[in-house]
């Protein structure tokens, strides 16, 4: 393999894309899969 870093990076990109699409992730997101929204308060509960 002549360009291992690029190859690994590109393979990881493909893996990430498939996971992101299945899990509904957005790469450039205000709400990333690793950051949840704020907790709701009682006022919003029905």
């Amino acid at each position: 393999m002549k360009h291992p870093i690029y190859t690994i990076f590109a393979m990881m990109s493909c893996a990430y894309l498939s996971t992101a699409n299945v899990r509904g992730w957005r790469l450039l997101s205000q709400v990333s899969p690793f950051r949840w929204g704020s907790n709701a308060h009682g006022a919003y509960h029905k």
Partner: protein
Amino acid sequence: MVVRKDLNVETIGVMAELPPDLSPLQIGTLGEWNGQRFELIGRVRVKWELGSWNEWYALFAGGSGGWVAEAQGFYMVSFEVNRDEIPEKPELLRAGDSRKFGGKFWTVSDVKTVRCSAGEGELPFAAPPGFERTSIDFTSQDGEFASLELSAGEPLLYVGAYASFDDLHLSNLRPVPGWSADAPQITNQTEALNCPSCGAVVNIRAMGQTMSAVCGSCGSVIDTANPAWTLVQGRDEKVKKIQPLLPIGARGSLEGTEYEVIGLMQRSDTESNWSEYLLFNPWRGFEWLVTYNGHWSFVHRQPAFGDLAGPRIDYDGRKFFRYARGEAKVTAVLGEFYWKVKRGERAMLTDYVAPPAILSKESYPELQEYTWSLGSYIDFKAVASAFNVKNLPKPAGIYLNQPNPYAVKWREVRWLAMLFIAVFTVVQVVTSSHARRKVAYNAELAYHRVSLEKTMVSPKFEIEGGQQMVEITAAAPVDNNWLGLDLELVDAKTGQVYPESLELEYYHGADSDGPWSEGSGSNSVAIPAVPPGEYYLTLEPSADPAVKDMPFHITLTSGGVFWSNYFFGLMLILAYPIYLLIKRSTFESRRWSESDEIPPGAHAKS
């Protein structure tokens, strides 16, 4: 010596003793040319004003004869052709004249008087020492050569081609002293004679092949073609200041062949100085190592080249672009050479490049000669390792035939990039087709300015499946006004809130430029990574002060994919290839900034 007259032989006496040389050929050497076996049965040593060479008489299977000439490290195989082909009035031919014979156009490259100096074995004619003849050499456009021999008898015409050592499939070779393990042991591998100018000992390393040598003590250039050494050029005290990067006499292997450094020629043109090291191997002949600013090229002479010219030459499947033209002068010499070198010797150089290859033409207008050579860039570490020398200067700047490292990487990476783009696209298509969109909530609502309850809360609805994206779309009949929605998607079980906002605005009108409009009556927002479960939506609408009431439609859809992931990933995958393309282009720009010629990319445009 024996003269062959078909199958009868006639002994005519003993010729002068052949001078010692390092030829690997001998009487009895076997070979093959164009599928025909041959054996060398005789040799003539031929001399002329500027040098000497061997002509071996070869007996081919079937009894026909041919010649294998051995000169300046080249081999040439030729055969006598029908005398009807001989051009008319050959004695009037001069260098540069053209004639047609044998169905081809030939140009006279050289006319000289040659003399037999010695011989051995069986020959097809009597060639006593001192036997003189006029030799007229021709070259054809496709690199073949012909030789017309004029003597007291009938003129003879020979036509042939250049051959490499490997082309001849030689066996039963002569062990070469100093080179072959099975050669007779001799105490002195080189011929040492005294400089006729200062008397210092001068060693000859390529005996029988070199025509001049430089005295390392006084710098005189000595004619070594004849046993009685004479001066070609007088003293040059600067010779002692020459410090070769590769010592004269050093041996090293390049491309699997062992060479000995036998000469150094320093040259210059109006802009630069460079050094050319002459290498010798008894079987392969002479090669060159050329160095400039720490860059090196391994250069092979190309005897079979025609008189090509122009801004581009296509050769060996490669496109060579002219890089430089100019006059070069020999500024210093050391060691020995296969021609009578002189300091101050001038030549017109034309370099064509197809990195890492370089094709060079040297023209000598005074001699009406030109030579071609084909070189290849070689890493300075490979040179240092081959000749076991330390501290070779590192390359500086970009050399004319230096391989573009980014071009090599680009050629390798582009296929990888195309492969990954294809895989990436397939992943996107497959995963997006599986991420089916489903409406989880859909409602017709309305904004009322006077309403006391500002916040609207939807009924609970189910988002099914796995973690996925959710898209909320709103539409309203805005018309030169706006409607804003602050909304929150709330997980009914965990209380997790996903706050978002949507603006709907649509304005239109007309001015001096005509009708205009901006905005839209619908808008959407996507929320990533929403887990499945029971949710509700809270909405707090606001609107333009002029709006009292406005209906709006809200839809919440689960599923689908973010195409921004795909395009962002594409950019990441393409970033490295694009970087290489830019660097490749920059490298080539720097390479060609040193040239007055048209860069390769500009040829197509011009």
